[in-house]
Structure formats: structure tokens, C-alpha cells
């Protein structure tokens, strides 16, 4: 439990930012989704590095990893709508494992030994791994290194919007591009940032 404090605080910190999502949550069906969304962001997303590591080990076709990850997420999310699993981690990995087995079966590939290899990966299913604690502590540092790895133009746009707080027209003017292009840069930037931020395991060994 103590290791969760960091991330829990982190979440309540960020959720104070009003970016429309909270407002959106206030309405009907969205309000019901709110709890599941919060749970998903808090419990599941921090496990994404471990999940991807597991999927990559079990499924050799890199181009399908993101799709596989999406399938796993959908199943976990829908299950959580009905009832929150006792252990998010254990549940996530059992779904992931079944998804890989399913997919192998359909593709007539036998990858069972890879699938069974959880322990060897250092992914402990029962106990919380370093992920959550590490997320809280190294959040900012990882965020920055993710930012540094973005393609130049995308990063520029994101920095102007998020750090300097410029408006879209201002960014367009500064970068000498159309507002539409600024929007595209921002959208690409946030997608790339999320894939780097969530997809990259924090320092191996959890130092």
C-alpha cells in the first residue's frame, strides 16, 4: 500500500487540472464511466511497461503488439465495468496471457512456452512490482526524457502549448505554419509521448 501513495497523490494532483474531461464526466453515462476510468488510469496504465514487455516476449510480431495491448485493455476495462478485480496486476496479466494463447491458436502458432514465462521476466503477478512506486518518484524525470525523444517539430509545438502556455494561433505564428498543422503536431506529439512514457520501462532494476 505505501508504494501506492506516490501515484495516488500524483493522480489527485493532475486531476485538479480542468481540461474538460471532468466536465465531460459530469454527464449521465460518463459519470458511471468515471470510476472505471479513474481505476484504469490509476491501476492499469502504470503497468503498461510490464505488459508490453510480456507481450513482446510472447508475440514476435512487433507490428501487432499495440493491437494486442488494445485488446487486453478492452477486455480488462469491460470486466472492471462489472466488477473491479481484486488484484489489477494479476488480472491484467491473466487476460494478457489468455489473449496471447487465443491469438496463437487462431494463427496456428504454438507459443505456449513463451506465454508461460512470466516469472522469468521478473514480472511478479501477485505483488505490486516497482512500477507504481517508480512512477511517482520518477514521473517528472521520465516525462522529460520522453519529451526529449520526440521529433523536433512535435516537441516544439508541445513545449509552446504546455510549458509556455501559448495559444494555437501564437504557436502557428511562431513556427510559421498553419493552425491546422499545429493541431496535427500536438496530436502526434501527445500520442508519441504516451507511447514513450508508458511503453518504456523505467530504469531496469528499479534504481
Amino acid at each position, binding site marked *: 500500500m505505501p508504494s501506492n501513495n506516490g501515484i495516488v497523490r500524483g493522480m489527485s494532483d*493532475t486531476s485538479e487540472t480542468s481540461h474538460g474531461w471532468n466536465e465531460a464526466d459530469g454527464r449521465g453515462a460518463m459519470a458511471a464511466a468515471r470510476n472505471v*476510468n479513474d481505476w484504469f488510469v490509476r491501476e492499469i496504465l502504470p503497468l503498461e511497461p510490464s505488459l508490453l514487455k510480456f507481450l513482446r516476449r510472447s508475440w514476435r510480431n512487433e507490428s501487432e503488439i499495440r*493491437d494486442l*495491448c488494445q*485488446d487486453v485493455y478492452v477486455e480488462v*476495462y469491460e470486466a472492471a465495468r462489472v466488477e473491479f478485480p481484486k488484484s489489477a496486476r494479476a488480472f491484467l496479466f491473466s487476460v494478457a496471457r489468455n489473449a496471447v494463447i487465443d491469438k496463437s491458436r487462431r494463427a496456428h502458432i504454438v507459443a505456449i512456452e513463451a506465454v508461460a514465462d512470466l516469472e522469468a521476466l521478473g514480472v511478479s503477478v501477485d505483488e505490486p512490482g516497482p512500477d507504481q512506486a517508480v512512477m511517482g518518484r520518477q514521473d*517528472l524525470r521520465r516525462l522529460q526524457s520522453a519529451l526529449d525523444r520526440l521529433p523536433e517539430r512535435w516537441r516544439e509545438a508541445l513545449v509552446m502549448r504546455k*510549458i509556455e502556455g501559448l495559444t494555437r494561433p501564437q504557436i502557428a505564428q511562431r513556427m510559421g505554419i498553419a493552425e491546422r498543422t499545429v493541431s496535427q503536431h500536438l496530436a502526434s506529439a*501527445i500520442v508519441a509521448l504516451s507511447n514513450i512514457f508508458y511503453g518504456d520501462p523505467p530504469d531496469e532494476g528499479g534504481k
Partner: protein
Amino acid sequence: MREPFSLRADDVQAEAGAWITRRDSTEWSNADQAALDAWLAASTAHMIAFIRLDDMWKRADRLKALKPNARQRTGLMRRFASGTFAMKAVAAAVVAACIGAAAFLTPLRPTETVYATAIGAHKALKLPDGSRIDLNTDTTLRLSRSANRVTVTLDKGEAFFQIKHDPRRLFVVLAGRHRVIDIGTEFLMRSQPNHLEVTLISGSARLDAPDGRMQTPILLRPGDDLTVANNLITTTRKSSHRLAEELGWRRGMLIFEATPLADVVAEFNRYSVRKIVVADRVTASIPLSASFPTDGADSFLELAKAMLKVRVDRRGDDIVISQRK
């Protein structure tokens, strides 16, 4: 071998990204919101991609605390320090009287008590609840206590706070236009005109601006070093090693590690009425690793002369370090 209705994760992500950005723009109408709601309702995959990117988008707000090149741990601090040394040394030093800590013990009304240290002095205040405040050189702070709140105003200088967290009594430190609210904490705060630095050693604390200029308070975590200068907020991380160095003054020590001479001098100047000036850029950038007592400016000068091959001259009341021709 894809199911007929399965969605490509990349496409879903790209669409979610477009929604996030669209929603961020100024002309976001109710119709837009309805369109977003419909998109979200169309598929769980949409919803997940959206909340994932939304979380990222909000997290990116923490980047506000970063400058693009704040990678060097103390980048901003260093620049600031060398800026200070370059300024004409302040001639008249304000030597404020130290007021005894005994005044603390009977705080019945929220009256304000002023505590100050002279240049070169160091003082520890112990509060009845076990909290402790260390005042470094040339520091002035005001303290007021009421039943449910302790307010410290750091007018200038540097103080180290070790707060015994009490949920019934809020501990708030004001400096300039910002305030730090403790949530069970040890932190270091340095305040100068237009410049505030907060370093969190342990626990957690929140920084915001009482006048509401900051939309989102910043939550500090141990090792976070936050600098507010010219309304720009920068956060960097400091290693525990580095933190120990910065707290050296509590033991009466200044600890430097590959610190440019300009910054070394700026540190000594904080503890002395007599100011040292570095004359040229080459000398200013010589790195020095050493530790001295806070009043050890003379031994520093001796060492600099002997080891760093620089000239040390008296010029009026100041001491000037320059390149040896």
C-alpha cells in the same frame, strides 16, 4: 486474421489524439462535446485510448515545471548565482538582531514575531510542536500562529523547515507571491527578490500562488527542486548527495563539487559583509571541489591563490579574483 470489427490500435490512438487536441482549443462547443461523447460511446477501445491520452495530456502539465533544457541539474541555479555575483556587491548590509526563541512559547494570539540572522549567522528555532526551522545567513522571516494555522513569511534569505505534520494545524510558508503548504515535510527554501527556490528533502508539499495566478498547484516530491524566477517555474531533480551538500550550512559547512568559482564566491558572499568579486569569465568558470566552514572565505582565498593559479587583490572593501597574466 483480424476480427471484422477490430480496430487498429494506431488508428484509434491517432483519433484520440486529435480529440484531445481539438478539445484543448478555444472553440470547443457543446456540439463538439456531443460528438466526442458519441465517439467515446462507440467503442471501449476509443474510451481507453482517450483516457490514456487524456492522462498523458494532464501529466504533461507537470512539464510546465520544466524548461526545455533544464536537464543540467542546477542549470538555472547556476545561471542565477553567476548573475548575482556579477551584480555590484551590496554595500550596506542589513544586520538584523536575533530575537530569542523564548518568545515562541506563549503564542496566544496570532501575533507576528520577526526572526532574523545577521550575515554569517545561523539560527535554529524550535517550535513547541516539535517542528524546527533553521535560518541561514542573512535571513528574515516572520512567524504567526493561531489555533489552526502556522504562517511563516520568508522575507529574504534561506531557511530549512522540518515540519511535524499536524492535520489540525496547517503549516504555510509564504515567499514573494507564492506559498508552500506542508503535507508532512522537510524542505529548504531560499528567497530573493524575484527568485524563489524550494527543495523538498522528504515528505510532500504543495506550492501555489495565493492570488490564483497558478491554475494548478504543484505537488513536490522528495528530491524535487523548484525554482520560481521571473514567473517561470522550473523543477529539477537533485540527488541525495547534492541535497546533503546544500544542507551543509546547517553544520556550518559549505560543500562544493566541481562548482564553478563564480558560484563558490557567490556562496561565500552570502555569509560575509566583505564581498569577493570575480573579474573575468575564465576565472569564473574554474571548477572547484572542496568544503569549507561558512566563515572560511580566507582559507578559500589562500587555496585559490595557491592551487588555482589566480590573482587575489584588494580593491577598496572588496576582494577581486582574476586571471594571472
